[in-house]
């Protein structure tokens, strides 16, 4: 038998290409770069690739025997689970990827995206140097020249149209430090028009959840799902969007023999593993939830004790629930009453139960209301604040939670400090820049269309314009846009252009911009869609893997990622890029006064560590104060010490003893206080220093004579055995606790309080004294309140069902109409005009198929990055639409054939049909990661040569339609109509 064969002639059979590189000796960084990048040829058609021989010349460098290996750890960028990526680096080249067994989050696992991230830093298809369009041609340029030209244009636009005319679109791929820096950049530039992907994924979650119980984030963790006895996954397909989370979900399902209920319009890969699958009509989440609650209340399955102690306003919500008897629910949602009753019983009685959701819940015109309905169900059944319970909100990018926390949002400053004067003053204190400086940076807004004029100070307290409306703000008459002038420039860092509905509008908007700047590792769809000839720049940003810094996973755990290799090609990291622009625009000295600059690839750049320390100095409201770089690095070095279920390290360990993994926020007080972080929010069964807490009373102390503070509920061993409000210096003084503050802390409080030190609170006391004493006394700094089932400050205080704008059931519109036309977030929001128009035109007849959208496991977001990764691109080579076999047969469509999908607003897309029973009759589903084709036309030529993604396809958003959530401006991505025809 042949075991090992000695060969004198190995080279003869060695496969072409790579061998040449490998035999030429040890690969160093220079040869790697010389070979890999700049010489790469332009577009290679996918068809040609399929015939390619084994190992092409541009093969990725493999391991080099005998060369020392350095291990670097970073975090996968492709969803919010927070999988540790363990990289093997040889001679500065990333040559291997090993499983990170030690991570308590992924335990070595990855999904298709995580297992292929090494390719991103090989970067065959990356943007390699700064470029601009000159007369329609891409022209290489230097960084200095690019920054200078762009800066001049920005200043020019600022002078003519105002600071608000430059839209700053940031990224969920940013580290916390970069996100924070970009938000700070916007403050110094003088605009609240700064946003990122959270707008289009979970902005409604953040708004809905925060308005229910205090903070807008996942209450528990992926790992904690192992404790659940019943789980409902509604409007989410984590098997594709968050595959590694399924490790915890399925393990929990197995060891507890837990009920796993999937409620979705589509029989997803997740649903395949459910114990119960409930198919609903897209856009009817509220009736489904109210239907569940109807059964719960009718059978007395609600948690009466929990409601009495910790919930306000449930009776008002139940008045709405009463309307949703099983017959009505079945008519509206399609779910039979018996099935809903069974699910309701499981959820309410086989506890702990958790509710998991994603963008199926959030991307609706009623997104915020959906989320609040979900929360209300959790409250009704007492499923918040304990292991195995909670709102497990799966977010979409590495750091979309962190970027949200850092205030890359049109309604906040960093760490959810609102746009009010007190919040601005807080950050002015932290930044040690006079408050008046910021006032001077904002535009005065003239009176327009009957709206009063605004001063700069007023303007800085007005929410900005959501990213979903940027092109409307470019195209609409100026008086429709509630700021000084229209949007004239888009400055986009790490954000796709195809992820927002109404792509035809975006195409027009792009044509009208004076300046378009794309800062990204890959040219995004902002590049391919436009018809511009000048005034367009692409700057190569490096990926997250080439950048130090912390990332906040969905469960609020912060993880420190190390720079694996130096940024490849001429790419620069976000810190440096933002710093250079701040320099050019003239505010770097002020902006970076407390930030350490270190030697970077292109010279001085801000250090991630010092940025995090500044965040720690200001992040009191959200407990971003205890996560010092040192503590986070200690966690990464000791990942294997944390328990996989409780996420806690044994108390006896040095550095990390007793900590929860990643110090999930809130991690109160200064790092030296050694708060362990909060694994499970609002958990009253623990002491504060073990991660305990309560619902946050942030909506007042009482309403209609009823208290909003908790009753007969407090965190374990609390000295105050009742509800209580947040702690301020005044409260401290009344309790006599001010005696526990040090002289230094008192001095700081007096200083920042000025005339009114009593108002200085746990959230604005930058000395940290108030929080320190609260923890010492074992009380919750923000108070102990009730969650609320009615959010009186929001539209629809109790969520009510509203038919989607483009509904397949126009007969229900009269009963469940969209909201009246209104203005939200600087823009008109014409719900009724559009819905009424659709009903009048009989759209439901001519476009009879419900169109919904979602993720594929191989791609992420707009998909340019993942579609450029050859290992991923091979797995999904064509954009497609899922069609039910019945609908397909009716239209003479067979599996794999080209079809046209047409939307009611005129957009149409040429895609392949995937005939499957995943979707029910009358429903179609499309993934949203494709771009590069527009209405049947291949736009590969619009990309800079060599930087075009391998796979291109139509964007689903060419077909999707109008509709925006009134609270956050979230688009309607999940419920519209379409027609499908053979192409």
């Amino acid at each position, binding site marked *: 038998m*042949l075991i090992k064969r000695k060969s004198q002639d190995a080279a003869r059979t060695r496969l072409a290409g790579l061998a040449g590189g490998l035999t030429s000796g040890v690969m160093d960084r220079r040869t790697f770069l010389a070979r890999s990048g700049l010489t790469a040829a332009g577009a290679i058609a996918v068809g040609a690739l*399929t015939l390619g021989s084994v190992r092409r010349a541009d093969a990725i460098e493999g391991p080099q025997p005998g060369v020392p290996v350095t291990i670097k750890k970073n975090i996968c960028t492709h969803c919010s689970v927070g999988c540790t990526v363990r990289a093997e680096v040889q001679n500065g080249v990333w040559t291997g990827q090993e499983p990170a067994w030690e991570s308590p989050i992924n335990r070595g696992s990855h999904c298709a995206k995580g297992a292929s991230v090494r390719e991103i830093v090989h970067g065959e298809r990356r943007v390699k140097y700064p470029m601009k369009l000159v007369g329609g041609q891409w022209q290489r340029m230097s960084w200095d020249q690019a920054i200078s030209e762009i800066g001049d244009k920005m200043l020019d636009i600022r002078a003519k149209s105002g600071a608000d005319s430059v839209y700053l679109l940031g990224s969920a791929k940013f580290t916390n430090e970069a996100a924070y820096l970009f938000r700070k950049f916007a403050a110094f530039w003088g605009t609240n028009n700064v946003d990122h992907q959270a707008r289009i994924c979970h902005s409604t979650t953040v708004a809905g959840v925060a308005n229910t119980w205090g903070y807008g984030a996942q209450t528990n963790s992926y790992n904690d799902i192992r404790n659940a006895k019943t789980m409902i996954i509604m409007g989410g397909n984590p098997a594709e969007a968050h595959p590694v989370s399924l490790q915890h979900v399925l393990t929990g399902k197995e060891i507890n023999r837990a009920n796993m209920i999937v409620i979705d319009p589509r029989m997803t890969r997740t*649903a395949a593993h459910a*114990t*119960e*699958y409930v*198919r609903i009509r897209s856009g009817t989440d509220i009736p489904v939830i109210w239907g569940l609650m109807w059964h719960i209340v009718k059978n007395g399955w609600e948690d009466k004790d929990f409601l009495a102690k910790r919930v306000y306003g449930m009776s008002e919500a139940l008045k709405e629930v009463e309307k949703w008897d099983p017959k009505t629910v079945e008519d509206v949602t399609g779910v039979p009453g018996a099935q809903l009753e069974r699910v309701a019983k499981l959820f309410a009685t086989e506890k702990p139960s958790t509710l998991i959701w994603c963008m199926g819940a959030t991307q609706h015109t009623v997104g915020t209301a959906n989320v609040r309905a979900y929360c209300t169900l959790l409250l009704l059944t007492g499923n918040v604040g304990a292991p195995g319970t909670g709102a497990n909100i799966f977010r979409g990018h590495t750091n979309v939670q962190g970027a949200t926390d850092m205030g890359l949002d049109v309604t906040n400053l960093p760490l959810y400090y609102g746009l009010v004067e007190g919040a601005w003053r807080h950050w002015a204190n932290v930044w040690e820049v006079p408050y008046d400086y910021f006032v001077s940076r904002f535009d005065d807004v003239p009176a327009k269309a009957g709206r009063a004029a605004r001063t700069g100070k007023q303007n800085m307290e007005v929410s900005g314009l959501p990213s979903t409306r940027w092109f409307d703000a470019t195209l609409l008459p100026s008086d429709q846009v509630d700021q000084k002038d229209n949007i004239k420039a888009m400055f986009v860092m790490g954000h796709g252009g195809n992820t927002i509905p109404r792509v035809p509008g975006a195409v027009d908007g792009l044509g009208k911009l004076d300046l378009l700047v794309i800062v990204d590792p890959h040219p995004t769809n902002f590049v391919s869609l436009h018809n511009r000839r000048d005034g367009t720049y692409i700057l190569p940003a490096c990926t997250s893997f080439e950048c130090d810094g912390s990332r906040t996973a969905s469960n609020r755990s912060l993880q420190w990622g190390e720079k694996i290799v130096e940024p490849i090609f001429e790419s620069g990291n976000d810190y440096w890029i933002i710093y250079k622009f701040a320099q050019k625009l003239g505010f770097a000295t002020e902006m970076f006064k407390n930030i350490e600059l270190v030697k970077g690839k292109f010279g001085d750049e801000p250090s991630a560590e010092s940025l995090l320390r500044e965040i720690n100095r200001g992040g009191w409201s959200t407990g971003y104060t205890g996560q010092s770089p040192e503590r986070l690095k200690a966690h990464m070095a000791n990942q294997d010490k944390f328990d996989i279920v409780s996420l806690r390290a044994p108390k006896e360990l040095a550095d990390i003893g007793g900590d929860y993994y990643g110090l999930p926020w809130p991690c109160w007080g200064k790092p030296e206080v050694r708060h362990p972080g909060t694994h499970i929010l609002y958990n009253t069964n623990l002491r504060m220093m073990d991660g305990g807490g309560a619902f946050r009373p942030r909506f007042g102390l009482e309403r209609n004579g009823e208290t909003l503070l908790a009753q007969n509920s407090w965190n374990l061993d609390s000295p105050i055995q009742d509800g209580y409000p947040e702690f301020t210096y005044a409260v401290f003084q009344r309790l006599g606790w001010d005696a526990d503050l040090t002289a230094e802390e008192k001095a700081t409080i007096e200083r920042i309080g000025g005339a009114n030190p009593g108002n200085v609170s746990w959230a604005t006391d930058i000395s940290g004294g108030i929080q320190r004493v609260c923890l010492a006394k074992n009380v919750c700094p923000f108070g102990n309140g009730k969650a609320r089932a009615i959010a009186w400050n929001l539209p629809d205080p109790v969520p009510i069902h509203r038919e989607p704008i483009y509904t397949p059931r126009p007969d229900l519109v009269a009963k469940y109409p969209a909201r009246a036309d209104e203005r939200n977030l600087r823009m008109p929001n014409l719900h009724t005009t559009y819905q009424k128009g659709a009903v009048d035109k009989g759209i439901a007849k001519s476009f009879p198929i419900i169109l919904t959208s979602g993720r594929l496991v*191989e791609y992420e977001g707009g998909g340019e990055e993942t579609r450029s990764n050859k290992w991923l691109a091979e797995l*999904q080579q064509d954009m497609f639409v899922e069609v039910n076999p019945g609908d397909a047969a009716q239209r003479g469509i067979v599996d794999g054939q080209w079809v046209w999908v047409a939307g009611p607003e005129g957009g149409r897309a040429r895609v392949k049909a995937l005939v499957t*029973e995943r979707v029910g009759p009358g429903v179609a589903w499309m993934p949203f990661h494709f771009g590069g084709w527009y209405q049947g036309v291949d736009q590969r030529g619009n990309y800079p040569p060599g930087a075009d993604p391998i796979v291109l396809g139509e964007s689903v958003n060419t077909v999707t339609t109008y509709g925006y959530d009134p609270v956050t401006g979230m688009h309607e991505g999940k419920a519209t109509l379409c027609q499908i025809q053979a192409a």
Partner: protein
Amino acid sequence: MRSSLRSLVAPLAVAMALSLSAPAIAQQQQQQPSSVNPTASSVQERQLLEALRAGTPGTGTTLHGRITIPDTNASNLIQPQGQAWRSVHQGLMHWIAAIAILGMLAVLVLFYLVRGKIRILHGISGIRVLRFSAFERLVHWMVASCFIILGLSGLNVTLGKFLLPQLFGEGVFATFSQWAKYAHNYLAWPFMLGLAFMFLMWVAHNIPGRIDIDWIRRGGGIIGSDHPPARKFNAGQKGIFWAVIIGGGTLSLSGFYLLFPYYAGGVLGGQFWNIVHGVAGVLLIAVIFAHIYIGTIGMEGASEAMTTGEVDLNWAKEHHSLWVEEERVKASIHPQAPQPAE
């Protein structure tokens, strides 16, 4: 599951494949049932495999699913027929080859011993008659030489490993086999071309007729010493012709599918055409052995027809009396042909 409906090759018709629809597939969901428990209703490998067991090589079904990559073969999860193909290829195929080829050799040796060389009864006349033109001979030898290499390389790919590596070593054998494979793949084309020419040149002379029945009944001059009349081709030669055309055609068609597997209908198609190719190959080799025998040591005066192209008049009269007549008639009309040789 994918069903490959393909008629069976006769020797392998062990059992007709069932066109299966596995139980799990059958449930066509009409309306949303009020209870859907995907975990409880999951497909079981055992059931699916049981449903597959009836498959015979080259036919039947595979355990088939959906896959995102474009390679349709990849969507077959399990195809147990591969093992059936293996047992045919490694077992039955060897027997068929052995019986056909060795059996034919044995028959020929036996025949030679019994019958001996068939002589020209009236001796050599010295008058030569042109039987095959240069072009006909060229075509014949092109096909023949290709066939020899194709046959040997074909046998090598199935049987070579039992003998040659032991003689020459694995490395040499692999290199030889590689070249043999190239030869097989590329010589197939001149073979097919020649086959087409043969067909066009000779089909008119090879239409079976009543005379052939007589020829066969009288033993064709091979058994016994009777010489029944025949035209240009007697029934025996017609048999060779049609064996070559049908066998060669089968080899060409099946070989084409093996060369271009994407047209073959997936892996099951590949298995089917491979078996067809193998069986047709060894059968044709056996037939060609007989052809070679009778054209060389089996019969005096026969080989010249394909070497010089000219045969002795007495040979022609004995074996192709009617053809000689026809030629004579033609010659009287066109006196320049045939020219007696000097």
